[in-house]
Structure formats: C-alpha cells, structure tokens
C-alpha cells in the first residue's frame, strides 16, 4: 500500500510543521508514504469564488501527481472535500473519479483505513476541538449537531488516545469560525465577528489550545487571537497525534 502525501499549498508555505507531523505520524504507523514533489493547489480558492472553470490546470496537475498511489492523504479536510466533490478532467474523467474515491483527510484515514486504536502520544493540555465545517458536514468526521442521529466523533476517538490531553466542552460544538476562503476578506466584518465569537467560546471554556483538521480555520483564529494577545494557541491535530511521550 503506497500513500501519496498531499500537502495543500498554504500548509506547504505557511505551516510546514503540520505537514512534517503528518508525514512522521504516518511513517511511525508503518505506512509506505511518498511525497510527490511540485504540488500546488487543489483549486478550491478559485472554485469557491465562482471560477471553477479556471481550475483545469490545477486539476490536471493534481491527477498527474497522484495517479500512481493507493491512497492520497492530506492534513486538510477542506482541500480533501474539494477534490472529492469537484476534481474533474476534460481528458480523463475516469482517472479523476478514481482519485476522488481514494483521497482521505488524515483523521478519517487514521480511523477508517488504518483503524488506529493506540497512539504513543502525549499532550498534557486542555484542548478544544474546532470541527471545520467541511470536515464535519462534508466528510462526516463527527456527527452533525443538526441531525437526529447517534453521536460519534473521529476527532475524539483519536484525541482520547493521547496521554494527558483534556478535551474541553464548547458551548457551540460545531459553529463555523467564519474563515470561508475568499469570504474571509470579501466579507471581512462578518468573518472576523464569527472568528472572534468562535475563539471566545474556546477561551470561556478554558482551552489552552484549539485544534482542528483544517489549518485554514486555525490560521484565521490564530490571526484574531494574536491581534488581541490571547494566551490560547492553535495546533494542528497531526502535531498532537505525532507528539512524543
């Protein structure tokens, strides 16, 4: 089984530590993982702005990079969802569909494919989970609060294996943080207000760290917390799961 590591563009450039943690974690778990070089972007920023028709270059490049592997894993639910829902190819749609079926966000890959039951990780902190909307409602990483359906959480399943980690309860378990891609600048006022309120929920409930499977949400909240000098920090879930004893 060969895994292709998909590192979204902004993580590559701005949050390399989350990418390194993802790689190291998967290696620790004994999987054969390659990082196809020269990756760019899944095309989501254009598509969500209404320019999906301009994403063919990104799509072709993505297909070329990842056709040869059994699974594609990325530490970003939002980018994975975009590939799953929208990857297309004018030349070979079958190939695109094949890729759509084998792309996984890290958390779901750990719980659903590797079926991880034990981790040698330690993170002695109070942690709040920010369930990014695309991971939650798009990839079903946890039960959605709106539905009358049994609860589950792939995040909690993994985080409960981490020694010393204490999960805090939020007042609004799955409220959006307001990042929303281009929304964060096009609707700056609403985006920031949503982010402030999301951060306040974590602060109010005693979080030392906010974690998520989406760094875009975390980047947005980090920007808000940094500005107001909040003591709360962000950490990608891969970094917690990859922490050492």
């Amino acid at each position, binding site marked *: 089984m060969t895994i292709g590591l998909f590192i979204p563009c902004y993580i590559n450039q701005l949050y390399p530590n989350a990418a390194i943690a993802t790689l190291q974690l998967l290696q620790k778990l004994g999987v054969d993982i390659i990082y196809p070089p020269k990756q760019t972007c899944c095309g989501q920023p254009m598509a969500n702005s209404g320019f*999906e028709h301009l994403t063919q270059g990104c799509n072709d490049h993505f297909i070329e990079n990842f056709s040869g592997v059994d699974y594609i894993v990325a530490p970003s639910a939002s980018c994975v969802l975009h590939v799953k829902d929208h990857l297309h190819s004018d030349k070979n749609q079958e190939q695109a569909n094949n890729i759509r079926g084998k792309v996984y966000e890290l958390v779901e890959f750990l719980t659903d494919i590797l079926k991880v039951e034990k981790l040698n990780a330690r993170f002695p902190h109070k942690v709040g989970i920010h369930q990014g909307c695309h991971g939650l409602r798009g990839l079903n990483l946890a039960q959605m609060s709106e539905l009358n359906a049994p609860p589950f959480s792939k995040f909690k399943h993994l985080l409960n294996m981490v020694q010393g980690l204490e999960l805090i309860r939020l007042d609004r378990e799955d409220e959006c943080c307001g990042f929303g891609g281009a*929304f964060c600048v096009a609707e*700056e006022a609403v985006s920031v207000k949503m982010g402030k309120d999301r951060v306040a929920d974590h602060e109010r409930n005693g979080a030392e760290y906010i974690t998520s499977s989406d760094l875009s949400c975390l980047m947005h909240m980090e920007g808000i917390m940094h500005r107001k000098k909040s003591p709360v920090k962000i950490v990608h879930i891969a970094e917690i799961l990859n922490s050492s004893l």
Partner: protein
Amino acid sequence: MIQNRTKDHAALAEDFIKDEKRVDWHDGALWWIRQKRDKVAKQIPEWEDLREAASLIKSNVLSNLHDYLLQFEANATKNGIKVHWAADAKEHNEIVYSILKAKEIKQMVKSKSMLTEECHLNEYLLERGIEVVNSDLGEYIQQLAKEPPSHIVLPCIHKRKEEIGELFHEHLGSEKGESDPTILTRTARKHLRDVFLTRRGALTGVNFAVAETGEFVVCTNEGNADMGAHLSDVHIASMGIEKLIPQKKHLGVFLRLLARSATGQPITIYSSHFKKPRQGQEMHIILVDHGRSRQLGRVDFRNSLKCIRCGACMNTCPVYRKSGGHSYHNTIAGPIGAILAPNLDMKKHADLPFASTLCGSCSNVCPVKIDIHDQLYKWRQVIVKEGYVAKTKTIGMKAMAWTLSSPDSYTAAGKVGRWVLKNTPFAVNNKLNPWYKQRDMPGAPKESFEEWYAKNDLKGKS
C-alpha cells in the same frame, strides 16, 4: 417595502456589526431558537424520515406542478373559491386591486404573506388609495417602523423591546419608556382588534394548498389570519404556485415539520383550513408565478422551490445571525433568500450567494432537505460565467489560477510570499489588506515543507 440597495451584503453587514452588543444579542436570540428546534426535532425518532418524506412529496409536486395546479383550480372552483392566475408581481397586485375596487374597499387587513412583500403590494395599493395594515405583530411593528421584515418568521427579530416601546409610544400612544412585552402586546392588540372589526377586505398568505380538495391552510401563532378572514366580506389568499401538496394526508408531514423547524414548537397555534367562503363572503385565491417557473427550469436550483418558509436556515446560519436580515437586501433573507434571489434579478443579487462560508448547516436543518449550500456554490459559478462579478476579481482569479497550475510559478510565488511576510511585513500589514484589519498575518517559516522534505528526504529513515 423598498429595500436599501446602494450597498452590497458585505457593506450592509459591516454597518450592522458596528453595534457589536446588538449583534451578540441578535445572534444569541436566533441561536436560542436553533437550540429549541434541535430539542424538539430530537424528540421525534422519525425526524429524519419525516424530512425525507417531505422532500420527496415536494419532488413529486415540482415534477407534476402543471397537473396539480389544474386539479387545485378545478376543486377550489367547485368549492366556490374564485381562482386567479398571476404571471408576475404586477399582475398579482392588479388582481388584488381590481377585487378590492369592485367592492369599493379602501382598507384591508393582511396577515403574514412573504409573497405580497415580494410583490411590494402594500406600496402599490397605497398609491391607489388603499390602506393596508399588517396584522402579524412582528410585521405590524415593521410597518410602523417603515422597514421591511428582517426575517420571514420573526420579522422584527433585530429590534429590541425598548425600540418597539418607542415606536408604540410614537404611533399608538403608549407610555413613554414602556418596554414591557405584555403591555406592548396588549397595546398592539387593542389597535388591531379595531382593525379586524372594521376591515371589509382581508388578505392572507397560504402555507399549503391541497390539490385533491381545493382547500388551503394558513399557519399562524396569533390567530390574526382567522380574525381578518372571518370578519371580512372579501378574503383574498395569495400563494406562490409551489405551495401545493397533492393530498390532504400529506399535510401531517409538513405541519409536523414546519413549526418544529421554525420556532421549536410542536405545531403552530393555529393551522386554519379554508375550503369555501361563508355565506355572503367572497373568497379569492391568486396563484402567483413571479419567477417560480423559471426557477423550476433551472435543473440545479429547482429544489429551492420546495421551501416551506420555516426560517430554520436563517436561525442556524452564522452569517445571518451576525449580519442581520436587512443586509441581504431581499424580501427573503438568509441562505434560502440567497438561492432564490438571483433567479429574480441576477445582477442585483449577485453578491448574495457569496455571503456564506458554505458551512452547510442550512442544508442540515432544512425540513425539506434543500441542498442550500451546494446551490450557493453553483450560483457562484453561474454568476461569474454570466459576468456579474467585478472585472478586477476576474483578473485576480486568472492570475491565481495561472500561478497555481504550474509548480514552478507556485514555488516562486510561495518564496516571494514568505519573503514578503518576513522581511517587509508593512507590505501586507496595512489597511489595503482586509485580512490585516482585525487579524494578524501568519508567521513566515524559514522554509516550506517542500524545501524541508528535499533536505531531509526522510523516506524510510524515521
């Protein structure tokens, strides 16, 4: 009422957010309703099946709309109701006016009808010397304030009780400074009772019309539709053509969903069935298209016509809660408004499908399972292709697509970006960068993951 249309959603929302205390309170009030909705929805084991059933019944209606409309017309006519057909808002308003004129009615009482708001009926009639009083308490307040409703179920949810007290003091003569909700409600009731007793003409909306029986159902919590309609000589009911359901037995599915989704009540206080006029009364029903058949023809967007106007998508929408209904500058605000409005006027409402983070909560609370957030995404594609976004945005997107489609240009851009963040932060940390206005930029790591990987080539070594 006429909507503010000099600013787009982002700008109107920014204005609303300036009063942060009000936003917090607005957000909290709507979230409280969302929680009430969750609680009652989870008390019914078959809730998700009910949603599915409602969605499928509406699919059937939309696929057979022509036949159901004719069936409804035939049965309603048999019951003694006069049926009218209106292609658009203008025809609808003309029909209402002609009915009232024939009876020499100069004053009309109206219960909640978003359709007549959509048609701007009140202004049309006022220009022709006919006065309309909105009898739903929230809409009555909005009418006194000369503002459109900001929410389809809770028209004045953006107003505090003190502001309502001010309005009542000015218009209804209540004590200055009075803001007790019970006292204010009694004041409004006193005035509305007089309206109900003296109006010869009454207009109601329609929540559901049953093709099989030719009857229609109006849901209210205040009983104001009944008081208006039962005391009037002429009862006019305005309905969008999508409000049909095939048979009476289907009504239970929708009535169980509607109030639970809207306010967390098991059912509205009044679910009033109107089948035929009482002796001596005239009953009219106006079947209004006003863009609905055009939307029906849009494959990606036709499901939006399943909407039963519960407002659950507004209550759950974090953007709506923080930005207020008026920021949508459309009769129907919130997520559902943002997928309905571009059908009516794509240019005017081109901003609305972008007023969302695509979080998807709207689709999950929708009692008829409209794929609202997917439709928002699809509208964005349509609006861009039709050329309704700013040219600068198009150029920017093209540049971005070009950069990201080639690894070399992307790597170069990434390096430049990190270099800029690190060495010339003033280039991005300024007022021209909307990210920076209230947020700091992320720190600039010394190397990208790709660069790190090339140096460390860890494959098999860890």
